[in-house]
């Protein structure tokens, strides 16, 4: 239905971002938490409105913007991510010296960029959304101005991100030249109508995939990930590891769900994605074995997870892809929340050595962290197990057995480095005592909610699966 209402969720987020920017001038530095409350309030409102629009299928601007169930579900995922990240940041920005009022505003801008991306079927709009997301991310990565690593992260992210955008826009130009349209469905339609192999459009699509490959951090394009994840403020790292990935995969799903139906041209792209997926799983997991910094371990783990998600794209298994993204949100944010919990004024504990003995000294943090790590590794009864299980079963059904074998082997390797953190937490004598700032109710709320999410999705995934199926079935095919 064509209605102005479709703009509402986006308008609320942009309004909140601008409001926070203005309020920042009037609010004293010690009271910056109020900005967080304002942002959280608007996020809740936006979430409620998105919920109201479920099944309504609003669209506006001649299809540049549509809120089908799929966009609403993905919007939910990224809104919840931002919600958690804001909760995690409330104490963090005071402790780690990133206390800028613009922090929340930039986060909300990044959120609006992702919402633009997931709720459009037009490459032009998707590109602009991607740029809004990227530009805000560059600034967020460099917010710890005194820390050289943070500046390094910002510069690296900026350079490689611009590079990725250039790839994307070049590919888009080629696709437009071939098909005379920037709309995804018309481009797929062109692929279908073409009787011979259209080289220009294929190269264009390949370049678009490369552009997204940078954003979702798959292997030949992952070089920036560990450095940026390490240097950025930790809540922002949590944000990077979930939000842009979810948005990027949403767009890939929008492209490839109809695309696989076009038999003629799809072979080359299929193999390209296969190779990327295998490389991502293997390199991500093996390099993670040698890391000693927990943030870097989690960075490589998030690269590896992108590989499993690509299998779902290749297997045309949309339900498990979206389900995986949902589980991934809870387990990854949860793991980062535990990492953030281990810090005090101007000091974060990020080396593996620091984690020795944490499991007994801070039993709650240790236990929840262990659950999230088990979930990331894919042990039952956590959500991570079911997510991986669905993806692999879906792939076997499509006959992608070799890919699944590699995936299972790679995730066996991953067990080593996830368990290593747990071994350090529970079975090593601490060499130095660590002191942490414990009065952080917002962070414990996030830990609890993520724990609930991971276990709920692992034990009783039924309700969510129904929602996911409804969301995916709203994807336009032709």
């Amino acid at each position, binding site marked *: 239905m064509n209605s102005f209402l479709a703009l509402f969720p986006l308008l609320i987020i942009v309004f909140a971002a601008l409001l926070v920017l203005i309020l920042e001038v009037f609010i004293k530095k010690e009271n910056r938490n109020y900005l967080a409350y304002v942002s959280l309030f608007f996020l809740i409102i936006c979430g409620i409105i998105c919920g109201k629009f479920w099944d309504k299928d609003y669209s506006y601007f001649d299809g540049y913007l549509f809120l089908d169930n799929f966009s609403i579900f993905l919007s939910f995922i990224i809104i919840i991510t931002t919600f958690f990240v804001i909760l995690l940041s409330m104490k963090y920005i005071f402790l780690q010296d990133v206390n800028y009022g*613009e922090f929340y505003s930039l986060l909300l801008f990044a959120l609006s*960029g992702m919402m*633009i991306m997931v709720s459009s079927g037009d490459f*032009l709009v998707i590109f*602009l*959304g991607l740029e*809004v997301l990227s530009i805000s991310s560059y600034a967020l990565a460099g917010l710890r101005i005194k820390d050289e690593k943070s500046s390094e992260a*910002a510069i690296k992210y900026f350079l490689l991100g611009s590079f990725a955008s250039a790839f994307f826009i070049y590919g888009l130009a080629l696709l437009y030249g071939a098909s005379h349209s920037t709309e995804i469905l018309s481009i797929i339609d062109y692929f279908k109508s073409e009787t011979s192999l259209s080289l220009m459009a294929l190269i264009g699509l390949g370049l678009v995939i490369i552009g997204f490959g940078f954003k979702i951090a798959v292997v030949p394009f992952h070089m920036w990930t560990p450095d940026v994840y390490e240097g950025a403020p930790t809540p922002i790292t949590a944000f990077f590891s979930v939000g842009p990935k979810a948005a990027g995969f949403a767009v890939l799903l929008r492209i490839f769900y109809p695309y696989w139906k076009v038999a003629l041209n799809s072979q080359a792209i299929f193999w390209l994605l296969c190779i990327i997926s295998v490389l991502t799983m293997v390199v991500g997991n093996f390099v993670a074995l040698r890391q000693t910094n927990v943030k870097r371990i989690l960075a490589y783990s998030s690269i590896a997870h992108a590989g499993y998600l690509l299998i779902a794209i290749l297997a045309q298994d949309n339900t498990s892809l979206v389900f995986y993204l949902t589980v991934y949100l809870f387990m990854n944010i949860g793991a980062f929340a535990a990492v953030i919990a281990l810090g005090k004024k101007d000091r974060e504990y990020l080396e593996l050595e620091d984690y020795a003995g944490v499991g007994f000294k801070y039993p709650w943090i240790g236990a929840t962290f262990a659950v999230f790590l088990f979930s990331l590794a894919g042990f039952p009864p956590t959500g991570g197990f079911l997510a991986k299980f669905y993806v692999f079963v879906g792939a076997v059904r499509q006959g992608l057995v070799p890919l699944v074998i590699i995936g299972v082997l790679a995730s066996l390797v991953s067990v080593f480095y996830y368990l290593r953190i747990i071994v350090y937490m529970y079975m090593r004598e601490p060499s130095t005592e660590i002191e942490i700032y414990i009065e952080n109710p917002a962070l414990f709320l996030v830990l609890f909610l993520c724990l609930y999410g991971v276990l709920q999705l692992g034990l009783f995934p039924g309700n969510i699966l129904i929602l996911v199926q409804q969301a995916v079935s709203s994807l336009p095919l032709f």
Partner: protein
Amino acid sequence: MGHFLFFLLAIICVGSVLGMIISKNQAYNALLLVLAFASLGGLFGLLDAPFIATVQIIIYAGAIMVLFIFVIMMINLRLGLPPEKKKWTLYFSLGVAVVLIVELILSVKGAFSLFENSSMEKIGGPTDLGRLLFTKYLYPFEITSILIIAALVGAIVLVKKKEKE
């Protein structure tokens, strides 16, 4: 007259780009680049696209060049480093150059047939552009404003002085 202007502008454009590559002084490089952009603008003007010509001069010769000159001023390199003389980069760039020349020849050959049966359509006038921006492309156009404000906020927060404790 048209032909004369075309060749004049084309020669200026190619000459200044060549000069830019050869010259080692950054300030000269920047100024020669301005000249190249300006003559490109003139070429667009000859093609009956006054709006693109103006935009070419305002954006490239104006905004982007000012940026370049600022960077040169701040970094203050007197003379660039002597170019590294590696064999393989030379061969590699020669190979790329040959590929590009072949591509150029092919595309010029292809373009000649287009010239003969092209109806001189007037494109890129400000009216058409404005109408498209505010009707068909309204949504992307508005997103651009979010993009710009996000970039502004990000840039300012990164460079502003540390707040007083």
